[in-house]
């Protein structure tokens, strides 16, 4: 355990140091990412105003809260993508990682965890500016705040696991980008990324329960913004934990088969 703690802190430190080399580039990257929720926020606030100040229980103020928290959750669930997996497998770059006495997934989790530290620091002034402009209605309790803190890290793990599973398809297909686009479309609808899930048809909401997307995106936002009962808060954490355990087992099983196919070309 001590070994993993040392590894994670060292890798996170390295990642922080790397990201600080290019703070301006990171800032522009983040501003680019924030454009998406700002568009959603403006559109849905306009719709709410036209509907007499509320749509599906959301006012312009709660929409603002939803999408500002969205920006933080989006930063938190950035993980090593299938494009990255495709690159590291096709180019043989996985070799370097495979020679180390630690599972490659730890490297991905630790590196992006360190990255988030930098991104959150950069996010704070942007969130402050968005709050001044859009005036969010956000009054979380201490419990909701604590559950949110745990939930965003679990969301990160779920997304890392699902994207890694997708990325490992490259061991068989050499290319996985097209599959990632399909995943991305499903995530947009079933996660609460496009619109809060409570505004979606009932069948979409029910379907979302059985996929990891909601637990990696919408749920943490709802914890802080929505009016969830204590029961719903902990059921959500339970679902996240279940996905992490289930996903972890599946990743492990697939990894054992997949790695036999690695041809280490070029590296």
């Amino acid at each position, binding site marked *: 355990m001590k*070994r993993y703690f*040392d*590894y994670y*802190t*060292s*890798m996170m*430190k*390295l990642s922080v*140091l*790397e990201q600080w*080399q*290019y703070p301006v580039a990171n800032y522009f990257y983040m501003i680019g990412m924030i454009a998406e929720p700002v568009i959603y926020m403006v559109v849905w606030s306009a719709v709410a105003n036209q509907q007499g100040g509320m749509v599906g229980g959301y006012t312009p103020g709660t929409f603002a809260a939803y999408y500002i928290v969205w920006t933080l959750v989006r930063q938190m669930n950035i993980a090593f993508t299938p494009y990255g997996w495709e690159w590291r497998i096709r180019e043989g770059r996985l*070799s*370097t990682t*495979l*020679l*180390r*006495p*630690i599972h490659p997934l730890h490297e991905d989790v630790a590196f992006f965890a360190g990255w988030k530290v930098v991104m959150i620091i950069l996010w704070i002034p942007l969130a402050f500016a968005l709050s001044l402009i859009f005036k969010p209605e956000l009054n979380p309790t201490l419990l909701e705040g604590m559950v949110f803190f745990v939930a965003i890290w679990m969301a990160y793990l779920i997304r890392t696991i699902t994207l890694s599973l997708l990325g490992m398809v490259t061991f068989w297909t050499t290319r996985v980008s097209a599959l990632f686009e399909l995943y991305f479309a499903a995530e947009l609808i079933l996660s609460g990324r496009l619109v809060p899930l409570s505004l979606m048809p009932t069948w979409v909401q029910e379907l979302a329960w059985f996929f990891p997307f909601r637990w990696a995106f919408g749920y943490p936002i709802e914890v802080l913004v929505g009016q969830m009962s204590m029961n719903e808060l902990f059921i959500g954490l339970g679902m996240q934990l279940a996905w992490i355990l289930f996903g972890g087992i599946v990743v492990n099983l697939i990894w054992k088969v997949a790695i*036999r196919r*690695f*041809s*280490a070309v*070029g*590296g």
Partner: protein
Amino acid sequence: MPSVISISKLAKHYQVPEREAGLKAAAMGLIKRRYKNVKAVDEISFDIQPGEVVGFLGPNGAGKTTTLKMLSGLLHPTSGSTSVLGYEPAKRSHDFLRQITLVMGNRNQLSWDLPALDSFDLQRAIYSIPRDDFKRTRDEFIELLEVGDLVQKPVRNLSLGERMKMEIIGALLHKPKILFLDEPTLGLDVTMQKRIRTFVAEYNKRYGATVLLTSHYMADVEALCKRVVVIHHGKLLFDGDLSKLVEKFSAFKTVGFTANGSSADWSQYGDVVSVEGGRVTLRVPKEKTSAVTSRLLNELAVDDLTVETAPIEDVIESVFSVGKDIVE
């Protein structure tokens, strides 16, 4: 003494898709794919004793790197058995990985934007090296490779040779017992090659490590390896002392002398390589060397007669050019 590396009938085959050029062939390939079975490594066997430095030679595509990748656990063999330090490499147990390293000329384990010292610290955490040990080893290697003024510069600002030195330090911080070195001096200038050779020799001496080295630079092999293993088209061609390889495959010797005013038809003694300022260089079949030198000394007034074995590059080339049937 038990072997630290032992491979028996090791093979790696690949199914490689192939087709003719052009649109028609590409369209047909969608319906029916044609595959070719490529034997990258074809049932090779050898053993290496602790502390040995062995040169692993072969032309491009001979199967050297594939073999090293199987020995380091990156690739699963198609058949045959492999044992490194008593472990089966393909299982990639953490205890095994802690005791080996694979250095490739094109490998990049260092963070590009940061000084190498930061990447070294990550290596410490990966291999759970106690901090005191780590600092001692790191400083020892920095001194040996004379890179004290470079370790604080971002890696992207270093030259190829300087980066390679950093890669080697990073790869050896955990003091591995087995070193697989795949073209470690690739693309480096002569001075840098020599520095890395000296370092590898020193590491082998200090820590008793076993080294399996591939290199296209024969100077690396001559300086470091007493024994060489030669493969070609995935098959083992030779396994033994470098001196025996030279003896066996050096078909010619180079005879040089100063003509001392004498003039003759030099071609009657052997192939004339050069005649420069009275100095004549001939290429003579090995078995005729004694007869030719006797004739030169008896028939002409020659000075400074020298007989040299052909350069190692020529010897290796002749090994690759002969067939398996005439190689033991």
